[in-house]
């Protein structure tokens, strides 16, 4: 017994001695460490979990992981597929996820309190384009009559004008015309609405002030929420007649022979912003270095994806087709990721910019992009009250954080991993793109004048109208 006691105290003594030694070494080395410390400190939180939805535009996350860009930043990242956009957002808000691949409208919607209220910010825009609108074979047969053809092939872009007689026919028979989109504040909702409205089909208003969040007030086409991967199955079951979704779920419909993509979002609005990487504001404030490092890794991934004229895309497709990422068959993902897009079966056309990850400053979080989403929220009644131009600007500045992006980009330039000429001129960049003209209805968008923009639309709430 006494022996044991002795042994124990001996062990303790050794232990404390060791701690003493270590701490002297530590304090001695502190000075040296301070001198050699980098400008950008180490990550405050090294083990991170990011969520994503099974879509090809999550590629920057998968590539940053697989190519070791996260590890280069000292980050140990776990990527986890989520069931739908709502689950994903909730898990970012309650901290189960450190960040996630998000719909551009999600951080904005959360900040202004549409749906769930939470402060979400983004310092990284994940891609441009990447969506399409698909209709079922049956609807396509009815639409095709109204689409102009050259050499037996339909002329693109196909406008919703061709769909209007079909919808009118449904209406006259008293049948609802139902379509799917992925989330109330999704790009897809706004793109589908934009396309429909440009063709004279009213997609319906939201009225949160009266508790009506169905978005179907005075609608010609009834839009409802379906998670992206379930779109083809839902259309096959006949619940919806068409949908707007990201890849590979349009090409999947072609491969399954159940539907025809009629228009890509590139044709609705050339080089439109699509997904963002969102984190909660609390998280970003607590872990600033971590945030910058995450953005650094993702910028590198985006660069890799667009390098040498998309030379790495086949490899990217191979990675994305793994079951833990997108998981669809290689051919299905490759169809849109490698610069082509297949409309009607066999009608494969070149769309080199169908997925843009880096060129055209795709990753920079432009305020004007945020404001476009806010204008659409206002246009369809999700923002019920008239707002001033400065309100749009304030919200955009609250959510979009080019300052964090710039720090990450500058660090990469300094390390020689990126070229300054590939980024906007940070010193002079205002965050507002010059007025954009490439819309399917030829309406010009100027991010500095959101209310004037709203007044240009024939269908939708005007700058000062209320439901």
């Amino acid at each position, binding site marked *: 017994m006494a022996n044991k006691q002795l042994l124990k105290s001996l062990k303790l003594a050794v232990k404390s001695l060791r701690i003493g030694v270590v701490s002297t070494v530590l304090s001695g080395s502190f000075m040296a460490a301070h001198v050699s410390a980098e400008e950008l400190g180490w990550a405050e939180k090294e*083990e991170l979990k990011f969520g994503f939805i099974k879509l090809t535009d999550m590629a920057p996350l998968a590539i940053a992981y697989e190519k070791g860009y996260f590890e280069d930043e000292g980050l*140990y990242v776990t*990527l986890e597929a989520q069931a739908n956009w709502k689950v994903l957002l909730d898990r970012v808000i309650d901290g189960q996820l450190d960040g996630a691949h998000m719909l551009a409208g999600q951080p904005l919607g959360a900040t202004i309190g549409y749906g769930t209220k939470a402060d979400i910010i983004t310092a990284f825009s994940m891609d441009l384009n990447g969506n399409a609108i698909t209709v079922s074979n049956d609807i396509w047969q009815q639409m095709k009559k109204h689409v102009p053809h050259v050499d037996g092939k339909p002329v693109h872009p196909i406008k919703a004008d061709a769909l209007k007689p079909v919808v009118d026919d449904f209406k006259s028979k008293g049948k609802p015309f139902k379509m799917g989109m992925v989330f109330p504040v999704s790009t897809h909702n706004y793109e589908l609405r934009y396309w429909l409205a440009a063709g004279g089909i009213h997609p319906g208003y939201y009225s949160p002030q009266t508790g009506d969040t169905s978005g179907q007030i005075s609608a010609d086409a009834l839009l409802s929420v379906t998670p992206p*991967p379930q779109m*083809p*199955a839902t259309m096959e079951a006949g619940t919806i007649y068409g949908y707007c979704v990201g890849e590979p779920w349009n090409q999947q419909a072609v491969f399954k022979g159940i539907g025809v993509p009629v228009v890509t979002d590139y044709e609705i609005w050339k080089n439109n912003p699509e997904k963002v990487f969102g984190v909660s504001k609390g998280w970003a404030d607590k872990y600033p270095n971590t945030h910058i490092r995450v953005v650094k890794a993702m910028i590198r991934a985006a660069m890799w994806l667009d390098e040498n004229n998309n030379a790495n895309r086949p490899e990217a497709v191979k990675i994305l*087709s793994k*079951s833990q990422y997108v*998981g669809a068959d290689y051919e299905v993902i490759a169809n849109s990721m490698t610069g082509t897009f297949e409309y009607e079966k066999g009608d494969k056309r070149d769309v080199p910019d169908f997925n843009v990850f880096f060129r055209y400053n795709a990753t920079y979080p432009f305020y004007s992009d945020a404001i476009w989403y806010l204008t659409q929220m206002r246009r369809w009644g999700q923002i019920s009250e008239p707002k001033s131009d400065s309100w749009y600007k304030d919200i955009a500045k609250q959510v979009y954080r080019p300052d964090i992006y710039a720090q990450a980009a500058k660090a990469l330039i300094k390390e020689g991993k990126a070229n300054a000429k590939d980024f906007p001129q940070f010193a002079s960049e205002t965050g507002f793109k010059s007025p954009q003209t490439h819309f399917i209805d030829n309406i010009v968008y100027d991010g500095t004048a959101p209310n004037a923009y709203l007044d240009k639309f024939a269908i939708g709430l005007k700058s000062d109208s209320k439901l």
Partner: protein
Amino acid sequence: MTKQVAALTILHQVKDANLPNIGKVLGNLALPLIGIVLFLGLWSVMAKNIDTSLGKFPGPAAVWEQTIGLIDEHAAQMDKADKFYARQEERNAARVAQNPSYVAKTRAFTGAPTFFQQIWTSLYTVMVGFIVASLLAIPIGIICGLSKQAYSAINPLIQLFKPVSPLAWLPLVTMVVSAVYVSTDPMFSKSFVTSAVTVSLCCLWPTLINTAVGVSAIDKDLLNVSKVLRLNALDHVLKIVIPSSIPAIFTGLRLSLGIGWMVLIAAEMLAQNPGLGKFVWDEFQNGSSESLARIMVAVLTIGVIGFVLDRLMLSLQKKVSWDKNAVLR
């Protein structure tokens, strides 16, 4: 005559010696085998005739192929994990060299969990949920069985909550766990707690009811013995009540475990918590040409595990039950 007798005796001997054996062998091995072969045949014939938009419904061959595929994937992932750890060690060493005050830390592999890791996650979660539920249900059940008043007080609640599906509990549990279980360095992940609590809530009831019924149906003689011996309350419960209601309690536990396993898979699918349910959901979302076969592998695995869990409970019941002659199946 003697020949006849001889023949008869021989026949008898054969019957005595062999026939029961053949019957036993048939019963124990051949019949289940026939059942399985018939099932496989029927399955492959049916599968060939079901066309889904993801190709043909997977037959046994496709499922076997995917099973091998999943094993290969597991091996590949383990290989990746080794490389991950090697890289991490290097990086840690480099960082320590640069800054000796840095305390190197080894982080767990961050790759996606493989099928087998998902199985383990599910098993672990269901066991925790089940044990928590049992620790609650058995004492409450005993109290209900002993006291009519307690039973009539608790019975309406049991009847109310017994039929509630995990689909209804899950959103509530998720929100409550997120709100209540706050810690900067949590011991368990929130998703694990959510799944386990949901399992507990759903598999509480069979144990509770069966325990209560078992306790209230104790032989009057035994109760009288307890009275005669003037056992105090604790001894009464430990020496009379529990031993005599063990069969009923175990019936409840087996039912509970079965329900818990089913609930867990549903909860994982819904809440995206790691485990076999998430595996199924992810594969469903993948929509690849292999997805259906991989889901089928998971379905069979879920079935086999459910079966094994039940057998384990049965053998445990046999071990603790004092009535070794009771028919258990």
